[in-house]
């Protein structure tokens, strides 16, 4: 603790010196002259953090396995970060030189984060669509003659198998195949759910904004009631009921899940589209259309919707992430996507016990983290793209 405080104080001194040196060296150039102490401190702090990161990374590559294992995941994270950054940069370069004039222009003004996001989303979509061609084994296939719980990495000396680069799970299914099929199941279902949530919440929201009066009151109060109940617990409750009904009605439980999550999430979409719609409805061009005698459908879909696309599209990205996480959580709790369908949430739950090995045998702890990482990576990618779109639609320059 004392060391920590001393280090912070030391940084402060170095920061002051750094700024002073900068001022002297550049002859009081405006940048150093007007630099606040906070900015100088930030620079020094960032440099210190970077130095620590390099040191930790080198520890991770140490020949002594006891030391290397401690920094194993940090090493993977640093390497992954660099690989993805280079990948995103190349992807952007590709986009800048190939395609129509419009897309080229889009890529020119794109930050690296957004191009990373778009690249990742494209990869996920590709994997999800061609899952059955890409996966070496079936998603529910228990491979004969292969033991369960093969370690990932394919290193025979440590108990791996080169035929199963990511190992096998607790009943001997190929984890790589299940990850690939998981993209199809989890992402596909999340997408369908989000689309339904938007169709429902969006049209109701616009209707409430345009008509106002008692309909607006009624819809809004219903939404208030639905939003007052914690969404995950509410979904869990309804899913428990659905799990009883589903076999009786002969409808797959997954359909119930899609509908339940869509309705719960549509309340958030309703709030947004109503608010956006209300600020558009007061515009003179809506008044002009009303006075022309236009019908409700034309007003909602031709006049209001095109002006609401930017915020709605941004919300779509965010909502997709939330839906995706809800499905994963429900699956983790055992009421979501049902086995034997591969699903990332279920995979995290089933393999979760291995995380305890992380300290001394990092490779053993990897399987649940692969599924969790797949979820996290998509969530991050979508958010990067959404951030970028919000930035563009809000007209912020700089």
């Amino acid at each position, binding site marked *: 603790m004392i060391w920590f405080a001393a280090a912070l104080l030391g940084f402060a001194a170095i920061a002051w010196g750094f700024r002073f040196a900068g001022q002297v060296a550049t002859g009081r150039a*405006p940048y150093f*002259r*007007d630099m606040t102490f906070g900015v100088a401190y930030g620079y020094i702090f960032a440099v210190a953090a970077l130095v620590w990161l390099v040191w930790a990374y080198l520890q991770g590559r140490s020949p002594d396995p006891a030391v290397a294992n401690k920094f194993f995941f940090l090493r993977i994270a640093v390497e992954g970060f660099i690989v993805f950054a280079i990948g995103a940069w190349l992807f952007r370069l590709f986009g800048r030189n190939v395609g129509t004039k419009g897309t080229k222009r889009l890529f*020119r*003004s794109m930050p690296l984060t957004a191009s990373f996001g778009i690249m990742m989303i494209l990869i996920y979509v590709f994997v999800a669509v061609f899952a059955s061609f890409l996966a070496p084994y079936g998603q529910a296939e228990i491979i004969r003659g292969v033991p369960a719980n093969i370690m990932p990495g394919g290193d025979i000396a440590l108990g791996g198998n080169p035929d199963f680069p990511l190992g096998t799970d607790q009943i001997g299914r190929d984890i790589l195949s299940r990850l690939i099929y998981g993209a199809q199941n989890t992402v596909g279902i999340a997408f369908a759910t989000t689309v339904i949530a938007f169709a429902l919440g969006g049209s109701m929201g616009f209707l409430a904004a345009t008509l106002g009066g008692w309909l607006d009151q009624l819809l809004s109060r219903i939404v208030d009631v639905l939003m007052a109940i914690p969404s995950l617990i509410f979904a869990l409750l309804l899913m428990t009921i659905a799990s009883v009904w589903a076999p009786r009605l002969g409808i797959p439980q997954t359909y119930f899940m899609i509908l339940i999550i869509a309705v719960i999430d549509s309340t958030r979409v309703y709030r947004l589209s109503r608010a956006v719609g209300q600020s558009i409805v007061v*515009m*003179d*061009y809506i*008044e*002009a259309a*009303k*006075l*022309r*005698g*236009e019908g409700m459908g034309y007003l909602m879909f031709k*006049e209001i919707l*095109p*002006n609401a696309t930017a915020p709605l599209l941004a919300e779509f990205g965010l909502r997709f992430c939330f839906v995706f996480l809800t499905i994963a959580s429900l699956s983790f709790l055992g009421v979501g996507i049902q086995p034997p369908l591969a699903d990332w949430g279920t995979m995290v739950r089933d393999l979760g016990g291995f995380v305890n090995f992380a300290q001394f045998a990092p490779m053993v702890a990897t399987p649940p983290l692969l599924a969790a990482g797949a979820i996290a990576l998509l969530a991050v990618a979508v958010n990067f793209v959404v951030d970028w779109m919000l930035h563009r639609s809000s007209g912020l*320059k*700089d």
Partner: protein
Amino acid sequence: MTQAADTTPLVKIRDIRIDGRSDETWLPIIKGVNLTLQRGQVLGLIGESGAGKSTLGLAAMGYTRDGVRISGGSVEFDGIDLLTASAAVKRDLLGKRIAYVAQSAAASFNPAHRLIDQHVEAPVQHGIAGRKDSAEDGIALYRKLRLPNPEEIGFRYPHQVSGGQLQRAMTAMAMSCRPDLIIFDEPTTALDVTTQIEVLSAIRDIVAQYNTAAIYITHDLAVVAQMADRIKVLLRGEEIETADTRTMLTAPVQDYTKSLWAVRSFERPAKPAVQTGAVPLVSVRNVDAAYGKEKVLHDVSFDIHAGRTVAVVGESGSGKSTTARCITGLLPPMAGQILFDGAPLPPDYRKRSKDQLRQIQMIYQMADTALNPRMSVGQIIARPVQFYLGLTGKAKRQRVDALLNQIELDPAEYYNRLPSELSGGQKQRIGIARALAAEPRFIICDEVTSALDQLVAEGILRLLARLQDELSLSYMFITHDLATVRAIADEVVVMKDGYVVEQGPKAEMFSPPHHAYTDLLLSSVPEMDPDWLTNLLVERGVDNIGDAAVNEL
């Protein structure tokens, strides 16, 4: 401040070049303008929107908005080069020795704090005076600016004070550190004429009392004639002409300046009187209307005859626009009725037939919000053509092209453009085309020129006049600008607080005797004569102008 140093200029801008970022390139906004301002002098900056007035005004403070940069030239304030000065030096100048008064005081005050708290912020921050002293000084300034109830007004929140008072409070705030330079950016543009005159005289007074230099930015020539010692005319980032006010008004050198001066001379020839017994096209009969319980129209009656223009004038809040809403059916009246061609119209627009809706069209004040930003010009105009006349395909396209030609825009060039790719005047023309597309007989023009520069506004007025002659349209022209009334109206209706105060043919309205309110409105419109405000103050006394006089009525 030593008076001996008066020969050295307070502000010296040399060959300044300012660029704005658009898409990925820097486009020049100001292309090398010089500006010199002595202590105690007021410089008027005029030009159309987009001429770079505000940008130049801000550059005099060494400041640029986001996405704008100063790429060349120098700005000196009292010998200090503002472009190379350090942040600390600039912090010390801005607010203390240089102050800024924005166009919309309502948007510039923080609604969460009381006026006096915002007033004392700058003096306390700069260490000029303590809280208590500067609050007392604020009250003294409020009194000087003739704010009602100066002891207490500072303890109100911005929303509790009227627009004109807020603008004066903002001027007081700018004066709080007794700056050497104040930049006024269109401080009266958003105000009514009767309020404007009060603010103008207050600003002029206080600037003279403290020998403050000022840059006064506006597009209203008559206003600048009252305020400025010298006038600088800008056009597309370049200086056209600079001279002192009297020379500029009497003998402008450049063609552009002359054309600005000539705008106010447009006037339509008077039409023959309406035949007695003719059925008016639109007749408003004893209309009362209310928003909720608040009654805003009281027994309003007037007629609009075919092929004629009726101007409805009055301050904001007088019920002009509400009357229009009653005619269109957006606000069904509580009592009375609207007759169209002798037959009563259903009060609610939802109950009117398509043909009844078609006959009455509207053109809005803000062309920005009146056109759907996601539709192209072609789509906007084509919709009523298709909706009312049932034209599709080629016939529709031909009709739209004809309409575009009618409003003097080239169809080939403008058909596929979005509203954001048009100038303000062009947008307003599209609004006119959309109204014409319905082939109406009656058009309501709600302040159609008030958001436009004078030169552009004149073009719109001429277009409307020509269309009226060609298509024998009737207009209801809502405006608070009496110059517009003089240019285009046949009859005038004066409204105040929801009552019709006076009505009659234009010639009668502009010649005495008037109703006291009409008289006040007429006398509050600034004229191009630089002595107009001085003479008016001498003639009427400072207590008999503006809102104070309105309240006495």
